[in-house]
């Protein structure tokens, strides 16, 4: 996987032709996508054995209920980009993030890493490819083994994957370097997770992810559990690392303030579908989809005067039984008859700005 390694050296915004002889050169136009998903879906439901399947097929049993966590989603993440993925609980943003990171196989659809179809990769290539995308999780209490010292948490994966070779001293030095980069004192590496604060634990999670030299981080609500002042420290760390290591991010969050600050491009999900996607400034200045508009109106911002809150009506429908047509139509103030029957597709409404709303077709 020489191609994957050389991509580290190339600049984020450099044209593809400078990327060398790697797989990226198959792609036209800079910058090349590092990950692309096409029509991916992920369903969760009970697996049927042959007896159940028989009963269902002759109509003696009801088909099991299936959650369409992600429903035919397309997303392109280009090298060096920070893509924000926004949505409320249950909209499928974490499931999509896990599929992008390669730790959850899609039920349907295609996943491309550096332009190559993941299904066509050999086992070896797939293993190396998986290392190139790492995840940082929301809960630093649950995602770190409480019975291993920090040195082992950070040092285990690079040792096993042969990323760092040499004697113990070389490995220890490598771990120190990783900890320092994440803003942790290497003298604490003999300690266990419970001896650290929430913010420090999140730094351990980041050091662990970076220890295998990934090109991309999928951050799933990585700052949601932290206090405001600690959250600012971690966000600054993410921005510094992006500059130093040329990282690409998929930044999953429900916090629009955080996403606006960090992202180049934002995709908004509602009940398993991406309903709008645009450069950050564009989407915050000119939100197109009624759901995006409602979501942006409700971002709490610091204000100097007391103001009354207003809100869109209704709750998130259950993904077990989503509304027909456009999933948002029962809550949408502008819904028309067509919205209840036909699923709107993402269509371009401005350069680089797509939105899935039938209202754009009128006039």
């Amino acid at each position, binding site marked *: 996987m020489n191609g994957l390694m050389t991509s580290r050296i190339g600049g984020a915004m450099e044209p593809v032709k400078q990327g060398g002889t790697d797989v990226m050169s198959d792609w036209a136009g800079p910058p090349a996508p590092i990950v692309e998903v096409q029509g991916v879906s992920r369903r969760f439901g009970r697996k049927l054995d042959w007896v159940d399947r028989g009963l269902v097929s002759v109509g003696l049993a009801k088909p099991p209920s299936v959650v369409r966590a992600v429903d035919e989603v397309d997303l392109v993440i280009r090298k060096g980009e920070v893509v924000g993925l926004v949505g409320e609980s249950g909209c499928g943003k974490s499931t999509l993030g896990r599929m992008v990171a390669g730790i959850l196989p899609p039920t349907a659809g295609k996943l491309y890493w550096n332009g190559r179809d993941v299904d066509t990769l050999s086992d070896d290539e797939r293993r190396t490819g998986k290392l190139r995308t790492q995840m940082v999780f929301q809960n630093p209490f649950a995602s770190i083994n409480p019975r291993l010292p920090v040195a082992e948490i950070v040092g285990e994966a690079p040792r096993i994957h042969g990323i760092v070779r040499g004697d113990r001293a070389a490995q220890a030095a490598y771990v120190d370097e990783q900890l320092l980069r994440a803003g942790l004192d290497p003298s604490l590496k003999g300690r266990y997770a419970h001896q650290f604060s929430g913010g420090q634990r999140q730094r351990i999670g980041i050091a662990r992810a970076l220890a295998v030299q990934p090109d991309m981080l999928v951050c799933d609500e990585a700052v949601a559990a932290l206090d405001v002042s600690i959250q600012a420290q971690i966000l600054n760390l993410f921005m510094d690392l992006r500059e130093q290591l040329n990282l690409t991010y998929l930044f999953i969050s429900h916090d629009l303030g955080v996403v606006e600050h960090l992202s180049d491009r934002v995709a908004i999900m509602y009940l398993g579908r991406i309903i709008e996607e645009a450069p950050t400034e564009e989407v915050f200045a000119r939100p197109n989809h009624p759901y995006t508009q409602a*979501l942006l109106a409700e971002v709490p911002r610091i204000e100097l005067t007391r103001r009354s809150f207003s809100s869109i009506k209704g709750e998130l429908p259950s993904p077990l039984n989503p509304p027909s047509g456009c999933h948002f139509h029962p809550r949408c103030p502008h819904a028309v008859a067509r919205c209840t029957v036909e699923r709107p597709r993402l269509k371009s409404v401005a350069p680089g700005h797509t939105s899935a709303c039938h209202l754009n077709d009128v006039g």
Partner: protein
Amino acid sequence: MSVLLDVRGLKTTFPVGAGQIKAVNDVSFTLGRGEVLGLVGESGSGKSVTGFSIMGLLEPPGRITGGQILFDGTDLTKLGQEEMRRLRGRRIAMIFQDPMMTLNPVLRIDTQMIEAVTAHRPVSKAEARALARDALGQVGIPSPEERLNAYPHQFSGGMRQRVAIAIALLNKPDLIVADEPTTALDVTIQAQILAEVQKLTAEQGTALIWITHDLSVVSRLADRIAVMYAGRIVEYGDVAEVIGKPHHHYTAGLIGSVPSRNRRGSRLAQIPGMTPSLLTLPDGCAFRTRCARADGDCAVMPELTGQGAHWHRCVHPNTQVLA
């Protein structure tokens, strides 16, 4: 505006080994009828313990070791268990972060709501049920009559929080203490609940203490803000004053850390270090080890100083106006 709640020099401590953790240390504030106070702080600042102290819901061995909580002229710290019990749920109510702390998972909503009414008022079951139905309607729960027969697990998180708020409102209390009630909810649901709370407190003249770490929520909701750090109020005043011209460097740092206050993509103004352990607080100002302006003068605990509607606990107050 008449004073409803007057907290004076409240101290709440938890014994740890040989020492004491002063979770709440000399906290004073007043609250008028119908007023909304935002009590802001990060984890471990003592904001929730302040709320629990007012409610008389401290878990032993934690206890109030000093000060007064004057509620409508009565000192709550002097009341016995039984007297407190009669007050709680009738004149003071609490909303928790997790609505399942309020709701019993094995009882229907109507059972729980009727009990909350009949425990405090001599009304028939049918009347209590009618009150419960009206309260559910008030907080925006559709078809309240049918929903009364449901169990808590049949509601979504946002709906459950509405039920908890409806229970708090049942006996038209004078004061509601809300401890991060919308933190676990989605943005659109949070906005719905804030809208309801804002409407109800204005209509019924209920005073509200909104405990949160989220400055942006209280900046829209509250009349006044108290910022807590390491057990003490470090700044207190009208929202526009505290947010627009923060005097304490901790408050200024908190406001600066909020992403939407910063230019997109720029580094956030972060507060260095982390919240100190209450067991090993520095002498004097607890914030001085993280403060850029700190010098020798900060080794003595500054008193709350200020005038009119804006008070702070800092010897080198910040003079910069935040945009």
